[in-house]
């Protein structure tokens, strides 16, 4: 202690506010979530794969010059080669172009389905949660009943009744009860957030309802809705696959991954490549969405913030 000079013992004026400054940079909720998502390599890879798949479904059918519906009897069931990159099917159609054309339909069903169910679900769930009480009770009863009808049955009935197997009918019938899950989710989350003490605190401080909704309710609900969407999209693609498989999906000349895979399934033993490519695309899409959803859920979970 000898080496210390006496004048070091002068009093320093206290500046309490200094202790209050954040030692670490401030980060918003979304900024923080994005930072955490970025460190998740699996989720980032999923995003890249998905973007590639989406771009390919847009440009893929035009890449090698063969139309997805041109039949060529001289080139039936060819293996993948330099001309037909994924081979040809039993009618001599180019599988490469067909896979991407089919992907368009599958992606459209997935994305459109998810958008529709999110919009309806959010509005319905939001209204139920906002009004509460009797309105909420009745609205949720309706959902409970709708949700207990197996979706496949709804789809089957609708497609029989409308006698139409167009993309529109398919999306309609898939979303007819598909929004119920989202509505439940949104309502549950809204009610939970509404009860939180910080909302009450904001209310007592005189924060306007509009600000409470935009600053507290929406950000808190948005997180789980985004996660739910990433699980909904593959759900619709999967459902479409099933429908196509039992012959209720999109009809020729249109096609989807499910339809391609199911058509190829009969010849699977002889021409495995015809089934391999659409199956690979289904699996890749599902995988990427699922992993991205997992990553998003982790990234958006405020409990994990550190």
């Amino acid at each position: 202690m000898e080496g210390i000079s006496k004048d070091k013992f002068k009093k320093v004026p206290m500046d309490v506010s200094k202790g209050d400054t954040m030692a670490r940079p401030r980060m918003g909720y979304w900024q923080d979530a994005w930072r955490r998502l970025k460190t998740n390599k699996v989720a980032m890879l999923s995003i890249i794969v998905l973007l590639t798949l989406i771009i390919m479904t847009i440009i893929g059918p035009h890449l090698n010059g063969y139309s997805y519906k041109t039949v060529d009897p001289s080139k039936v069931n060819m293996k993948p080669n330099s001309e037909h990159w994924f081979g040809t099917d039993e009618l001599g159609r180019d599988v490469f172009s067909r896979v991407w054309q089919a992907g368009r339909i599958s992606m459209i069903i997935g994305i459109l389905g998810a958008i529709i169910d999110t919009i309806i679900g959010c509005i319905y769930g939001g209204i139920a949660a906002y009004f509460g009480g009797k309105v909420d009770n009745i609205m949720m009863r309706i959902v409970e009943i709708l949700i207990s009808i197996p979706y496949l049955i709804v789809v089957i009935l609708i497609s029989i009744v409308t006698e139409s197997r167009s993309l529109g009918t398919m999306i309609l019938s898939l979303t007819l009860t598909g929004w119920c899950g989202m509505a439940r989710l949104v309502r549950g989350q809204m009610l939970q957030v509404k009860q939180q003490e910080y909302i009450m605190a904001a209310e007592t401080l005189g924060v306007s309802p509009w600000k409470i909704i935009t600053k507290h309710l929406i950000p808190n609900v948005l997180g789980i809705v985004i996660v739910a969407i990433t699980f909904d999209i593959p759900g619709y693609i999967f459902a479409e696959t099933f429908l196509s498989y039992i012959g209720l999906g999109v009809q020729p000349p249109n096609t989807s991954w499910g339809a391609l895979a199911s058509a190829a399934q009969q010849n699977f033993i002889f021409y495995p490549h015809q089934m391999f490519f659409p199956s690979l695309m289904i699996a890749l899409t599902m995988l990427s969405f699922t992993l991205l959803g997992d990553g998003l859920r982790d990234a958006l979970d405020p409990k994990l913030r550190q």
Partner: protein
Amino acid sequence: MGKYIVKRIGYMFLTLFIIMTLTFFLMHSIPGDPLAHMAKKLPEQIRLNYYEKYGLNKPVIVQYGKFLKNIFTKGDFGESLRYPGRPVTDTILKHAKISGKLGFQALFIGVTIGIVLGIVAALNRNRWPDYLVMFIAILGVTVPVFIIAALLQYVFTVKLELLPTFGWGDFKHTILPTIAMCFGSIATYARYMRSNVLEVINQDYILTAQAKGVSPFNVVRKHVFRNAILPAITILGPQIAGIFTGSFVIEKIFGIPGLGFYYVSAINDRDYTMIIGTTIFFAALFVFSQLIVDLLYGVVDPRIRVSNDK
């Protein structure tokens, strides 16, 4: 609890009634009438006989009344349109047994394996068993069941020639369809259990148990398991639904004469009475199993048990 059960059963019947009504009117709202499609080519007299036999010459409301009466008094869905003389109810019951056997087998195996794998994964978090289980689980939820089925057929029947590809009869025939079907349940349950276990492990009461000196093995067995498995009952409902949807596809691929197979062919044949009957049967089964699942959860979880008592 009693009041709760009554209420739930009430809702179940309401749901079923709505489904019945909906199905009936949807089927009868098809342009023309259910028979138009197949009866077009028949001679006038036979056609009229047909209409008489199925009561289609009466107003829809009358038909609806009769339809409900037959269901509630005799459990009768009428006769198949496609195969006259074959009662729908008999057909359903006969083939439902096959589907039921397969579905139950797949569900049981799938849930058991899924739970075990999920726990193993959670307890070995971020080590190789975890990665392996999650890999299997991800495949299970991302690969459609018919692709799995096709691969199984290819490997076990074409390459290894161990099992029959097709048909129904002895136990051998059930192996591949069961494996293909339970894949989804394994995947869902493994993922669900893993996250449940991880959540429970972080609870304060686990710390209490550790502080008591309970050995790590017993902490898992006595404290983690029960708390993590209980909520898993709630996802049994969707799993059962998944078994139904799975059966449509699986039975078609493996040529199993189950209800799903008949349903799909009834759809393709436009056999309306059969479609109505099977739809209602599926819906009833589904709604009923959901009810059982909910009640079961109430029985095993003391927290719910008590709140229902009040």
